[in-house]
């Protein structure tokens, strides 16, 4: 009996090992995104986008999901991702760590992006008109989104500091970090936090989908505009795929329009009408603020 078992185990091991062949790797364009929204939204969006890019560029495109903002930056630096949809801050962090990488495009709304501050109706917080009134948030339970989010942390924190509100002024001596914009909305709406800051785009999309309950949560303030999300491409794509590839890739994004059914769906999921060209220099101000707040060294 034992002998038999041994033989079987030995055979199984050999069978297993022999089964492992090696696969020829072909060049794949790996795209990614910071996980700023619910994963099912991202999965739907990037599935369509990958298939469209694959068709337009005539190569295999794979979407690689990551669980937090810093991991997206790391994956870009280590070369696991060729093209990433970054927020302004993570984009700058990634660009400073990957020589030659290049901002290629952004949406029309990213030129003039806003964060909004929201509050729970049951809190005593009122709508404010002047940035200095952000002081009323002192002593409240307040949450940001991800710690590396531009519209969910960096810019809100920048404006809060401008109004004289520091992180330690919130209840519990520190703000919360919900991890994503959708989570911030959910937490403020349910009352876990009395107030929070998130991207205007995500707020609007949730309004459209009826996921905002106006009897529970409302907007108290909208920030001045700044540059936000963008596509950041590795500097070596022309070498890796073919000459002029980065240019071709950029053009594919710029050509997206609502005439094609698939492209219309993509633009819809990105909450935009079209992509426009963008460049590294658009993010100089973000870099400065990032350094000031300590998120960029």
């Amino acid at each position, binding site marked *: 009996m*034992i002998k038999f*078992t*041994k033989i079987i*185990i*030995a055979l*199984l*091991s050999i069978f*297993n*090992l022999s*089964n*492992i062949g*090696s*696969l020829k*790797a072909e060049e794949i364009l790996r795209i990614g995104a910071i*996980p700023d929204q*619910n*994963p*099912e939204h991202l999965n739907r969006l990037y599935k369509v986008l990958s298939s469209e890019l694959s068709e337009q560029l005539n190569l295999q495109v794979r979407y*690689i999901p*990551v*669980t*937090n*903002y*810093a*991991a997206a*930056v*790391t*994956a870009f*630096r*280590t*070369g*696991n991702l060729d093209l990433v949809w970054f927020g302004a801050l993570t984009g700058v*962090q990634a660009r400073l*760590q990957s020589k030659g990488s290049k901002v290629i495009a952004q949406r029309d709304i990213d030129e003039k992006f806003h964060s909004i501050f929201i509050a*729970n109706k*049951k809190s005593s917080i009122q709508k404010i008109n002047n940035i200095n009134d952000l002081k009323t948030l002192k002593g409240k*339970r307040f949450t940001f989104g991800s*710690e*590396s989010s531009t519209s969910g942390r960096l810019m809100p924190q920048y404006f809060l500091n401008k109004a004289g509100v520091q992180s330690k002024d919130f*209840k*519990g001596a*520190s703000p*919360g*970090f919900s*991890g*994503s914009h*959708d*989570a911030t909305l*959910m*937490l403020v709406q*349910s*009352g*876990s*936090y*009395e107030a929070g800051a998130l991207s205007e785009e995500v707020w609007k999309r949730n309004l459209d989908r009826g996921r905002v309950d106006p009897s529970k949560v409302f907007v108290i303030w909208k920030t001045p505009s700044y540059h936000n999300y963008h596509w950041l491409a590795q500097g070596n794509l022309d070498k890796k795929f073919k000459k002029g590839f980065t240019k071709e890739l950029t053009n594919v994004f710029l050509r997206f329009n609502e005439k094609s059914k698939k492209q219309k769906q993509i633009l819809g999921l990105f909450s935009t009408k079209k992509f426009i060209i963008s460049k590294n220099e658009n993010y100089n101000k973000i870099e400065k603020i990032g350094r000031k707040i*300590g*998120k*960029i*060294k």
Partner: protein
Amino acid sequence: MKLIKPVSTLLTLIPSIAYIPILIEIIKGFHIGGLNIIFLFISSAIKPSFNQEVVKSAWEGLQITIATALTSWVISMLIGILLGVLSTDLFWKSIPKFSYLGKFIKYSLAIPRSIHEVVWGLLFLQILGLNIWVAIISIVIPYSALTARVISEQLDSFDIQPLIAIKQTGSNFMSSFITILLPKLIPIVSTYGSYRFECAIRGVTLLGIFGLGGIGTELYLTLKSFEFNEMWTCLWMLWLVMILLEKFIRFSRSYLSENISLKNFFFISISIFSLSLSLGISWLYSLNFEIFNPLSFSYLNLPSFVEIRNGFNTLPLFKLIITTILITFFASGIAIGTPPLLIVLFPGKFSLKIQNLIWIFFRLIPPPLTTILILLFTNPNISVAALSLGITHMGVMGRLLTDNILNQEKSIYRAIKSNGSSKKSATLYGILAPQSNSYLAYGAYRSDVILKETAIIGAVGGVGLGWQLQESLSSFDWAQVIIIIATFSLLTISGEFLFNTSQNYWLKNSTNNFIS
């Protein structure tokens, strides 16, 4: 009547005093805002999602986790056994000239095991990028060092007279070493090995929460997007698989130990290792991981001396260390104190069996998830971190205690009860007392594990060194990262020494013994 017994029995209950300050702090920050979500979370437990997509992705996540755990478990066992033997005093008796090498290996292994697997994971992610090997390596490093320690301690505690006797007959040292030690090594490997496999599954699940894939990632993403029904699908599936796996391991261990000679046991161990390794690797391969692609390193710019000095000046290190120690202290109190308290409060065999099942469940919920949930109705503070760490480890402690009690002789209990004592005091003296010393010894070891895990809990809970590590990592400030990890390492090495001393103290007085 030995006096030590009631004293250490009470000592098992005393740690639960930790609840008082913790509950006070949590209640102080309590607000009803998050209750809706908590209610939703609990009610979703009985209606997990059976959506085909959800079940499919949970199943895939589970496979990734188990396959990764299996692969890293085998590798860490093999390396651990080798290093374990190499760090025994016994082994170097044959080559006394180099015995300092043994000591060197033994003490330098303190460093790899002082750092939690998730921290290793976050570091290797920076160097190797998104790659399944990051998860494997991060488990293998601390686990091999831990296994090595257990193996060498156990081997060195054996009587070496037979070895000397055999050696004096003039036989080759190596072969006598193997003849004598192998039979002793095997039971340790078999008990400790199966325990480590379970740990590996928990470890890989945790790594998943920090973005390295598998069921942990599924759990984290579903919780973060408040899809509780989907989260429960993952959690129930994980629970089921863990129970089945445990039953399977127990069955095969008892089958093997009853039916097989030591020599065969050796061959079976070897084949289990080789089978697990090939199964793990081919499984990962079939899950589309590029496990055979060469690793590509991307180097970091190491910080300069000035940057490190600046890091020291900007980090509130003292406060961070105190916070970390407090979290460990309170979490250990909850973990060690709760299970005995429940046994005394709810005695009886049926109640014990229920508790046993509940503990398996608590043990499975990764602490960061508990933290996220507790944070819904209170402010981030030390107590939240302590409570969530305490809950998971309470599961580990409770499971062990109830298991041991269910297997123990009932004669003392019956004797005390037939003298007319109440059920509760009979439980206290007849059931808990014989377990206390070994339980406390194990508790000391748990505290050591808890200290290491504060690294990951703080990251979510917003407190302690763990939080600072996350913040510095996401700012890509390598000087700070190095300082924090070095501090952590020093803290856990001193912790290990301290807990080890108290563990030995309790083991000395222990009536029954369990390794881990």
